[in-house]
């Protein structure tokens, strides 16, 4: 089984957003970057599929050199091959998807895994864009994946419940938290990852379809009032909710 995992390198969840000098992106000074948390579930699932069904796992990322750090994390977890589709420029989700899809076309994987979204732009569209560009079926927000006999049966999260989705292979899957427990890289894995090569290619060019013209911080919510302490404050809270906020 030929498995591809596409990963992103994103600011960690502790990051406080500060608008950069261009007014469109964050000021990256002092920001720590990491493997996108949802992509970690995708990497783990790829490794589990390989352990069960055999085959190769290739991890790929599109972006500048700094993405190598995230590719190394995937290698340390046990992925065999890493590929950086190098691009220093600005891309929207469409451009990222197009670059990845071009590469995947020649790779012809049976299974392509993504995280359900990157936690920077929260766009949740790259994986499904890639699937459509490749003419493949896809299942998003997957919390259970069972691959056998050339097809997959998945569970995916929907509002207030789960859906069971069946698909033929090859197919694209977008991992959600709950799909698995990502392994910690072993010391041996970390050491081995340091000497594993990361293949580099230039990402194929793409036009910008959705242009970001400004980044701002949402208006800070002013601190409200402390209604009171302990259960004695409850009647006043209920009154405020009914008469002032009118929410109940």
């Amino acid at each position, binding site marked *: 089984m030929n498995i591809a995992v596409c990963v992103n390198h994103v*600011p960690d*969840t*502790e990051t*406080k*957003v500060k608008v950069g000098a261009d007014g469109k992106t*964050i000021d990256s000074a002092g920001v720590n970057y990491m493997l996108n948390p949802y992509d970690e579930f995708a990497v783990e699932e790829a490794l589990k599929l390989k352990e069960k069904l055999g085959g190769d796992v290739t991890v790929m990322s599109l972006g500048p050199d700094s993405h190598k750090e995230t590719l190394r994390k995937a290698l340390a977890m046990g992925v065999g091959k890493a590929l950086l589709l190098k691009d220093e420029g600005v891309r929207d989700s*469409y451009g990222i*998807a197009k670059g990845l899809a071009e590469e995947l076309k020649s790779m012809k994987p049976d299974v392509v895994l993504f995280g359900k979204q990157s*936690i920077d732009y*929260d766009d*949740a*569209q790259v994986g*499904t*864009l890639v*699937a*459509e*560009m490749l003419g493949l079926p*896809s299942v*998003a927000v997957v919390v259970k994946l069972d691959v056998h006999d050339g097809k997959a049966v998945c569970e*995916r*999260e*929907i*509002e*207030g*419940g*789960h*859906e*069971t*989705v069946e*698909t*033929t292979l090859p197919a694209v899957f977008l991992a959600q938290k*709950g799909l698995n427990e990502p392994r910690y890289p072993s010391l041996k894995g970390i050491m081995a990852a340091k000497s594993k090569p990361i293949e580099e290619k230039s990402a194929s060019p793409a036009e910008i*379809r*959705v*242009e*970001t013209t*400004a*980044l*701002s*911080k*949402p208006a800070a*919510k002013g*601190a*409200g*009032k*402390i209604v*009171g*302490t*302990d*259960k004695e*404050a*409850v*009647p006043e*809270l*209920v009154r*405020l*909710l009914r008469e002032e*906020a009118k*929410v*109940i």
Partner: protein
Amino acid sequence: MKLLAFAEQRDGAFKKSSFEAVQAASRLAGSMGAECVALVIGSGVAGIAAELGQYGATRVLAVDDPKLERHSNTAYAKVIADVAGKEGADVVLMAASQMGKDLAPRVAVKLDAGLAADCVALEADGADLKAKRPVYAGKGLIEVVVKTATKVFTLRPNVFTAVKGEGTATVETVPAGLSDSDFGSVVTGTKVATGRPDVTEADIVISGGRGMKGPEHFNLIEGLADVLGAGVGASRAVVDAGWRPHDEQVGQTGKTVSPTMYVACGISGAVQHLAGMSSSKYIVAINKDKDAPIFQVADYGIVGDVFEVLPELTDHLKKALGKE
């Protein structure tokens, strides 16, 4: 100019976020002197199509086909793109629901369009459209312009209004034009988790954190939620501890919510949690620690023990709502 609004239905009922998308489209069309068409897809749905007239649609297209009884993202996306193409729609809108988020990228590729996802504002800017969308789970907000001739937008649920009016719509049925090969993946079953609304769709969300001290105490959260018809949420800490399922997690690696009221119980307010819920209209916080960061975003706070305050609050609300 023409706008096409896809209105999602499940089991023959529209979702509130579908009404929001239709109304946003019709309002936008009004401000731009454009035409607005709504689209409903499924099996046995022609009968409910006219309901979209109450939310501003004057013309509704119904693609009603037994083949569409089971949802398939590939087939639905093809129908939406085909209809958009035939109608000559310049803009396609839908809710950023789980279904919408799954369909919009496919529709965008088919129409050679750019997609601005999960928008919280969308307005005419001359002949163009300007959208705003949250990034970093709401820690930032970006303005985007879609530069392609055809544009696709998904709208975050619970942000745009859906006010029922007196309007009526004409309904036209349209053939699906699908073959078996269009059904790449198919939904074969659905399981309802709790029967409570999902946190992303609920008007009110009651959330619990580490201050609940154990999974056995979440009956207090659920009790209050059920009095209010609310959804139940949780902080990352309690989801990671296995107290609550991850589909309840609110915050940067969980769901971002915008309910009318968010009640945070025993949640201190880590930056990742605040990112996911601070766009709620009203925030109520109950926490023992008066210095907890949650109070900095709360409209109403009670400094106190959740184990005392929650039962009292549930009782008072039961009385106030006549649900004793």
